[in-house]
């Protein structure tokens, strides 16, 4: 089963995405801050990580950079979910290694499509 890790400090967003992705047949894990998110990623080895940018302890960008620097996780798909909409922010997100970038407020249905698209791109 495809594993998705959601790291967001907003419980509403976390649970809404969890329900939605569960319904689509994904195995979903959730964490509320960057540090535990990275630890969970090392533990679970997900196929896709959905990362909030502004989080306690470690920002989404830092987690993304750490994931890319971890050999077991360097191929994981990363989607940044953030309210930062400036062009420079988007550039920074992609430069840190994100595969996709979703702006808040977001549509859970769109998120599912993007998760599927990232997975499709990563499948050889």
């Amino acid at each position: 089963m495809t594993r998705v890790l959601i790291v967001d400090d907003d419980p509403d967003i976390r649970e809404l995405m969890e329900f939605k992705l569960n319904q689509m047949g994904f195995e979903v894990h959730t964490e509320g801050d960057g540090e535990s998110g990275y630890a969970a990623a090392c533990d679970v080895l997900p196929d896709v990580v959905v990362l909030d940018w502004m989080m306690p302890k470690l920002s989404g960008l830092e987690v993304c950079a750490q994931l890319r620097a971890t050999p077991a996780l360097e191929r994981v798909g990363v989607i940044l979910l953030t309210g930062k909409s400036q062009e420079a922010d988007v550039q920074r997100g992609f430069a840190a290694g994100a595969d996709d970038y979703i702006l808040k407020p977001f549509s859970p249905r769109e998120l599912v499509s993007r998760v599927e698209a990232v997975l499709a791109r990563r499948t050889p």
Partner: protein
Amino acid sequence: MTYNVSISIALAVLAGILALLTIATAMRRAFVNAHDRRQGRLEAALRPRLLRLLATEDPDLDALAPQGKHAGRVLDALAAGLLPKLRGSDRAGVVELLERRGAVDRACRATMSRRAVLRARAAEQLGNIGLHRTQPDVARLLHDRHPEVRAAAARALGKQGDVESAPSLLRALDNGLVPANVVSMALMRLGDRSAPLLEMTLRESSVPSRVVCCELLGLFGAVGAVPAIAAIATTDPGYWSRLAAIRALGRIGSPKCLAPLLTCLHADRHAHRAEAARALGRLGATDAIAELVAALDDEHDVAFAAAAALTALGPEGMRTLETIGATPLRAGRYATEALIVHALEHERHAPSQFAAA
């Protein structure tokens, strides 16, 4: 003896009052704690049901019917709290749920509440819900007697995104009912659909309104409004409105902005001349090089802005600065400074910063 009895009675009364106050405080605290616990229990029970329902395709919104008035209010608050986080059909689902539960009509009625806090909260909620039909209820609050309610109404109108709100917002600004920054943000959220109305307002409004309109037209890049903005930039009696108009011309960046900006480079006030120099740099107007070079001999802030503008004009502007920088003139010092600042900025914004981040 009588004195001692009086003292004793007074002390006994005081002790009685203190005891009553202590009991009242403890009872209130216990009541609030019990209310919070009950609220927490209801939220914990309703939240997953609401989120699960929203996560389903084609949700049956009537299936979520909590028992009791209090539980209903908790559900409404939970649903309203989700609105700013969602968009698309999921957001529409939450709005439909609130409509069916009567929360929208209740909020409309609350705009007429006697308590200011309830009116402000209702405005905020209606802003988040964003239904066109509630616009008049929110717009009415722009004339509320409490400034906080008026500001909440302006913010709510911005969130609703209904371009019909633009005239009400501008009138509220003209009449000094809502601060300019709140109106600016609200109009900004309405987007460039409000540009024709902003352009019309330029001709017949107070200085604060003209400032806001110029700033927004500049940010929207309203090329069609250039003649009206140019008129403000060159002839308006208001200091701040002229400044905003000059800045707007630079932001719009159309070739039509060049002539009025060159006129502004010779304005009476040095702040207007400096702003015009900055705007010409933003415009990338190489035709303005000779005028900008002349401005290097102007007052300090104009010369500084003109030199910085020349760095923004590409190789031609840079070559001009290098030539002037090699001379011992006052203008040469501004040219050298601008070249150094440009080199430092270039270094700071080099692509390596993304890798470092």
